[in-house]
């Protein structure tokens, strides 16, 4: 058995921390894990991505057509994940655009959300749209966008909800209540969308 998760976004969104939480969860659950993180330039507004592979695996990187779950934290960055979509696999699309310098003054040149979604559809992915920034704002912690997505992916990956909340209690020192609220709202959002 293998379960492959591909996370992609822009440096500063918490892509790597999200990967770290998932990795810790899987390790604590007694699973074999490999965790690859693209680090280096990400902090400087560059692309950031990480891959978590759970189960009987050898390679540290997800082969093409093999991601069971993809979380696209920034829409255009998600295009890089298309190669790895497993037909029938799930893709969470976060309604978020971060404009690089060239597009800051010309946002109209950014690829339309619809087209990005269409490409994932053509790759035979099941698409779940989430506006994590809006939810994070509603719980009063804008930075918790990645925790909202953690909630959503936990539902979609059938993770042990209570177990992961307990992990958060241990690992998140500040604003715990708001983080847990963010998690729950993300979890419910995914639940609502798949019923």
């Amino acid at each position, binding site marked *: 058995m293998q379960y492959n998760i591909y996370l992609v976004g822009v440096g500063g969104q918490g892509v790597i921390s999200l990967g770290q939480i998932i990795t810790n969860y899987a390790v604590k659950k007694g699973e074999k*894990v490999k965790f*690859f993180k*693209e680090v*280096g330039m990400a902090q400087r507004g560059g692309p950031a991505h990480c891959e978590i592979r759970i189960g009987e695996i050898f390679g540290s990187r997800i082969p*093409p057509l093999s991601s069971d779950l993809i979380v696209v934290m920034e829409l255009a960055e998600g*295009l890089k994940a298309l*190669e790895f979509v497993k037909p029938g696999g799930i893709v969470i699309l976060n309604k978020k655009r971060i404009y690089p310098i060239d597009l800051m003054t010309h946002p109209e040149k950014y690829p339309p959300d619809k087209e990005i979604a269409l490409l994932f559809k053509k790759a035979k992915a099941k698409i779940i749209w989430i506006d994590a920034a809006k939810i994070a704002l509603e719980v009063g912690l804008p930075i918790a966008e990645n925790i909202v997505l953690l909630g959503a992916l936990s539902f979609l990956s059938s993770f042990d909800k209570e177990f992961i909340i307990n992990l958060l209690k241990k690992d998140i020192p500040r604003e715990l209540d708001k983080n847990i609220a963010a998690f729950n709202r993300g979890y419910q959002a995914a639940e609502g969308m798949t019923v």
Partner: protein
Amino acid sequence: MKKLLTGNEAVAEGAIESGVEVVTGYPGTPSTEVILTLLPQKEKSGMHIEWSVNEKVAFEIAAGAAWAGKRALVTMKMSGVNVAADSLASIAYSGCTGGLVIFVADDPGANAAMPEEDSRYYAKSMVVPMLDLASQQECLDYLKLAFEISEKIGGPIFLRSTTEISHVASDVEIGKKLKLEKREARLERDIAKYTKAGAAWCMAQHQDVLTRLAEASKISDSYVTESGIKVNEIHFEDDNKYGVIYAGAVEGNFREALKRYNIKLSWLKIGMVHPLPEERIKKFLEKVDKVLVLEELDPLVEAEVMRIAYLLNKKVEILGKFDQTLPITGNYSFKKIKNGLEVLLGVEMESEQDSKILERAKEIEVKRPTSFCIGCPHRGTYFALNKAIKNLKYKKDEIIITGDIGCTILGMNKPFESCWTEVAMGASIGLAQGFKWAGIKKPVIATIGDSTFFHAGIPPLINAVYQKVPLTIIILDNGWTAMTGFEENPGTIHLSKTNNRRVDIIKVCQGCGVEDIHIIDPYQTEQAIDIIMKAIEYPGVSVVVSQRECALQAKRRKIKLTKHKVNMDKCTGCRICLTSLACPAMVFHPKDDQNKAYMEITSACFGCGLCTYTCPEGAIEVTKDAV
């Protein structure tokens, strides 16, 4: 006990288990985290651990400790070996008494944007054995083995990693700490060994280093580590004439492919890439007819396999880079290895993603060039530098600005597009002098960061003073070795829990004989422009030190400035602030049904205040509440 460790963390664990007493290095992606992991344990472990001023110094310190009988580890990225190389060759020929391991991390795929250099050539040219890492477990196991080999042969040894090993976390079986007898530091005076005075000694040392190399091969060839890893291993599949010879990080994807497609073939794993296990390769080639060689970067193993096949006088078909089955550039993804196996076996294994989807994705992809962080002091320096050049009535494309390694090079990107060149640590100052001697009449400016200046910028500065080259050097001093993850350097002000003494860049420049030295604050734009203009006009060597702490570090240390906001009544939506500074805290809102076009400064603002200088309407104001 198993623990989830990255390759670099496993090397750090191996250092503790091996009883290392001195650890030195210079930060460089992807090698940095070995020392970052060890540093917090400095007190408890009793080790001496340091970020040295550059890799050459780091290596010499480690070698000195090893000559005095202690176990020493030095870490660097592949570019660092170039810096250390001069001392490395000499010390390799002399040998050592205590164990001496050089940990080097290569970067196939250029994740950290540097030349895709293959450090295995250094092992060959310096006659030093090299173990090549194929998994995170090996990071720990091979480091211990490396010390064992180093002490048995009496010479240094390389341990080579790559990004895919160093930056991946995986289950690692933790071992026991070796019980070494306490060693007194002692150096025997032996000038035939520790100096190079005289051809006879040099020739004798050359013979010694060759003997040590052969011994290293003998020890490693059938070595099995504590956790059961064989350094070199042959697997024969009956009735199958196909084989794979591999070394290094390709192992994971290769094994994954074997399992996924249920492939049975013979393989030879090589853990020691210099010297190669020649007898094993012979034995392998005798049984197979068609071989694929898997190794990242240059075809070093492949060339040797061809040589050995030639000596065997047997017709073996060898696939790899020479026949262009696989590329020399880039890291070896699963897809590349799968493609290699398809050529070897003459079958097609599995379809890939529809190429139409990938092509369309490529067409609409958004390029994301790296830029300065919110509040980055370098933004202010390049902004002022460009303005100074403009005020002096020069055109932007006639003033050469040489750039250097680190965050400061981001001045080459939009919106500043200041830097013209990026070569190597400290090279901005040397190159600039070459442009002047070549006859460039207009001013030439070199930009360099603080850590880079300490690392290799001082000798070219002395040269410029000595040769009286009219040159402006801007040292962007943010107090940290920031690009690699905020390590300390001799100029760092807020030395955390260390007793190190700070070295003052201004005094260094004075000591080097620079007579025209200025200090600017990159957040004070007007003043900075004036001073840079004066420095450019100065007829000799002038140095401008732009001092402001890295904003990310300042933020971590809870330094708070007043944030800024846009006065909506005054903002005309002209975007001049954005096009001049490209601050990630700015968001442009185009005109829509309800609102006119306007700028927003988000709560991510650090408060550097540069934008207030750019706004023609004076629409950017300080918020009332300091955050």
